């Protein structure tokens, strides 16, 4: 049985506006002439899933939805469920405990993260940021990073690992994790806030130029580790300069009637749906082509009162084969998947070119842990939704024999026009996506 989404009109104006046809003002002129671009989004859920309920029965064409995937019935033909993919570098490899932090840090990077509480945070560049680095200059924002939970506010997250590992899905550089924006209003501001006030932009550019000067004069006077920090700042300054300059050449984006969300919704589902709607808006108006959304921090122990589940998710994930616990995990999984369904249905509702926005998208949904009790990082739950601009043949269950997840990412990067030869532990491209 699928639990119906609570139909609340909570999107504070945003939902209303999204029902309106896309305003031409929001569409870059360039996009009209050529084929619409392909978009990439990655969604992550922590603690693994209940695999027996996740894995679809059978293989190949005519995907049959498993119990957990039932909420996706309306978009079933747009799904490729991939089993047998692994992130081997999430394993301990001598580093001891910390499976959750490692699973998240490895998920989009394929690199084994350095075990550290504070000094020398390091993993790899995540696939979304690889794409953003290559095609990000075509859009107002190279990428957006979204999250639902704030990073842990104190203590240790996963033993031996800084909380930065447990709350970042995207990594801009091997040493710069990008925490996701939690506040929908701040996301709105990033999407629509800048580039509307020429005078403000001029002042910002001159201030950024000042910062760059200050950094340059400071760098030779500090040591190596300090210089790394200052470089980080300089890189961000450069990116913003580029973005502001670019915004002046890109068609103006206005958001008439689109109301700025107010505050962070208290309800988890409402929060995820609101973020999803913002993501759809960003893709639709081609404000960015790359996004990540972290549904909860690694090892999250949130309870699910909306499902009348009082236990913490992480506690439950150590089910010890207890059937009751496994059932609760499966219900949480299905709830998460119902939120994915909301996103995919919204994408499908937007017409673009000859098809829909979903046809132009590649939405990866998954976890870096397979079974939460075993903490294994092979046979990961991974699902790819969307048509990839006609380059994917969805509606299937594809079984791979212990293949690096990063092989899938190489194949997705090709479709984003951002090809690379290697990423993390990739061994090649994943074949069979096009059928």
């Amino acid at each position, binding site marked *: 049985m699928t639990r119906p989404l609570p139909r609340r009109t909570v999107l504070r104006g945003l939902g209303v506006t999204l029902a309106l046809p896309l305003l031409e003002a929001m569409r870059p002129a360039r996009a009209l002439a050529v084929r619409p671009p392909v978009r990439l989004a990655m969604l992550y859920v922590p603690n693994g899933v209940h695999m027996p309920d996740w894995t679809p029965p059978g293989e190949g064409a005519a995907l049959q939805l498993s119990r957990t995937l039932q909420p996706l019935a309306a978009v079933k033909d747009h799904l490729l469920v991939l089993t047998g993919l692994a992130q081997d570098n999430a394993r301990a490899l*001598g580093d*001891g*405990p910390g499976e959750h932090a490692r699973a998240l840090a490895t998920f989009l990077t394929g690199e084994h993260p350095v075990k550290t*509480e*504070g*000094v020398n*945070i390091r993993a790899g560049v995540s696939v979304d940021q690889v794409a953003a680095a290559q095609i990000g200059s075509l859009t107002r924002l190279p990428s957006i990073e979204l999250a639902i939970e704030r*990073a842990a*506010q*104190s*203590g*240790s997250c996963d*033993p*031996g690992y*800084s*909380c930065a590992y447990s709350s970042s899905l995207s990594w801009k550089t091997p040493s710069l*994790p*990008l*925490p996701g*924006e*939690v506040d929908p209003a*701040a996301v709105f*501001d*990033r999407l629509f806030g*800048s580039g509307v006030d020429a005078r403000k932009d001029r002042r910002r550019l*001159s*201030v*950024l130029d*000042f*910062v760059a000067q*200050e*950094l340059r004069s*400071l760098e*030779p*006077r*500090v*040591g*190596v*580790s*300090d*210089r790394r*920090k*200052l470089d*980080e*700042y300089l890189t961000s*300054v450069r990116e*913003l300069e580029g*973005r502001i300059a670019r915004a002046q050449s890109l068609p103006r984006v206005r958001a008439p009637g689109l109301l700025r969300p107010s505050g962070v919704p208290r309800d988890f589902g409402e929060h995820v749906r609101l973020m999803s709607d913002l993501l759809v808006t960003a893709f639709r108006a081609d404000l960015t082509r790359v996004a990540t959304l972290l549904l909860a921090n690694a090892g999250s122990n949130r*309870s699910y*009162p909306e499902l*009348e589940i*009082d*236990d*913490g998710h992480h506690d439950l994930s*150590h*089910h*010890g084969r*207890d059937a009751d616990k496994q059932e609760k995990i499966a219900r949480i999984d299905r709830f998460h998947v119902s939120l994915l369904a909301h996103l995919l249905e919204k994408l499908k509702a937007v017409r673009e070119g000859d098809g829909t926005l979903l046809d132009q998208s590649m939405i990866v949904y998954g976890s870096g842990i397979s079974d939460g009790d*075993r*903490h294994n990082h092979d046979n990961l739950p991974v699902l790819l939704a969307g048509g990839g601009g006609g380059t994917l043949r969805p509606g299937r269950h594809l079984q791979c024999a212990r293949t690096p997840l990063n092989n899938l990412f190489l194949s997705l990067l090709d479709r984003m026009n951002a090809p690379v030869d290697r990423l993390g532990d990739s061994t090649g491209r994943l074949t069979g996506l096009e059928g």
Partner: protein
Amino acid sequence: MVLTLACALVGPAAADVAPLIDRYCAGCHSPAQKKADLDVARFKDDMALWQTAAQRIEAREMPPAESAQPTTAERDRLLAWFTSAPTHPAAPGRRDGEPVTIRRLNRAEYNNTIRDLFGVDLRPADGFPSDAVGDGFDNAADVLSMPPALVEHYLAAAETIADRVIVVETARRGHRGRANRVLPESHTRLIPRRPSRSRLRQDAQEFLGPFASRAYRRPARPDEVGRLVAFVERASEQGASFELGMQAAVQAVLVSPHFLYRVELDGGDEVGDFALASRLSYFLWSSMPDDELFRLAAQRRLHDDEVLASQVARMLRDPRARALTDNFAMQWLQLRNLQAHRPSRRHFPGFDDELRAAMLTETALFFDAIVREDLSVLTLLDADFTFLNERLARHYGITGVDGPQFRRVALTDRTRGGVLTQASVLTVTSNPNRTSPVKRGRWVLEQILGAPTPPAPAEVPPLPAERRDAIGRSLRERLDEHRDNPACATCHRRMDPLGLGLETFDAVGVWRTREHAREIDASGVLPDGQSFRGPVQLKAVLLGKAHAFRRSLASRMLTYALGRGGGERATVDEIAQRMQRDGDSFSSLVLGVVGSDLFRARGGERAEP
């Protein structure tokens, strides 16, 4: 550091120790066995693990009782090596060298600094993304990163602040009355008088010099001020007002690396005077130095021990020292996580945001009292007073406290008193629907005794919680399984009894004597043989381990003060000894940290010749 330590095992001193490690540790913690996921062959470069190992050996918890035991001499030799190997960071004669990386202001520091810089409490950083936590705190230099999204926040905040603190006369025509309008103090602080049109540059210099010096927390250099004056000049060339130009200059200062980062360029081997002033103020106030600190730094007197001590005393009495409670204590006790903790509505229908806030207020006021009144830090473990309002008093079953306002309440019944028995701690260490003696025990071990435990290995069958009623066993009986299973026993023998001693408090900290119609047995026996029954006796046992607590607290506070972990054992020991000598007053802890070489040694390595 990694390299030196990796070499340490082959050094001369290690020749004595390596066979001991082989004999007593490597049997279980080998590449093949990796008990507790530890492999001594691999962890030679992991300082934190050596420290943990030292603690466990010292506490005689390792090697486990059933294994071969080192002789006392061998045990001493192992411990001595941990602390005195020539390449060991804590070895005497060696300056703990791990440089303190340049530190970005975190959210709390940014808010407070803006408040103290302009005299307006705008709290612009409340909307910033959370700072990542490293080494238990959100002020860890290395994890405070600067992604583009954050720079956007800084830019926007700088605009908002500049617009707020400087008033720009929009209608400049006529209206004499306008000139008489009372300008906010923030404005007159920055622009104390009308600038003269003919001396624009000099006036801008005169106004911006002192401002930049405060914002950069050291005397601003003429070329630095010159770059700021350029904003005013450029504005004037473009026909904009002096105030608009000043706004642009303020905006620039607020995104300058000299403002957003704590850069420590001055000083020789010791940290420079101004850098020391900032170290003090950000440690105790999470904010910039005040005029007195700046003055002492300028007079080069801050390194004087007596001056330093009197400044620390003054700063701890200042209301700004509340930052130690909000930022140090709340993170050390892990209470910031209470905000996101959601007790089950079904089991605890009485829990709501008001109660959550009251719980946090109690602990905050309690810690703040210890700071302000310079009480013994052992008060944290057991106290005869606390702070309550009516709501929380009712929660505790204490009568005679009326109204929403908090007040100091004397405790006669010592089942309450000290952080362990405060609802905030009892709740944040519980599961949403029941208590977790394991989590509470682990919290006591880690936060109070400073003895961390590794997490449970994967695929251990957990407690059969769901079958509880069918089988009818108590939580205690189920926890006993830990002792029977050797994979669990080593750690759980340490954790479970500590948590069981608090079982008379439910998962939101309400006192209880029964659960599921059973009498609660809150007794426990620790691995060292000490036994206790209930929270009062548990607290007594912990007070008996006061030195472990001193070291634990000193270590956490050192990490907080330095913005990096590393657990320098020798320094921590020195601070703990000083505390013990000085009656454990809170100020003795702070003075120990501030007086340590680490706090006063120069930070990052220098590039200049």
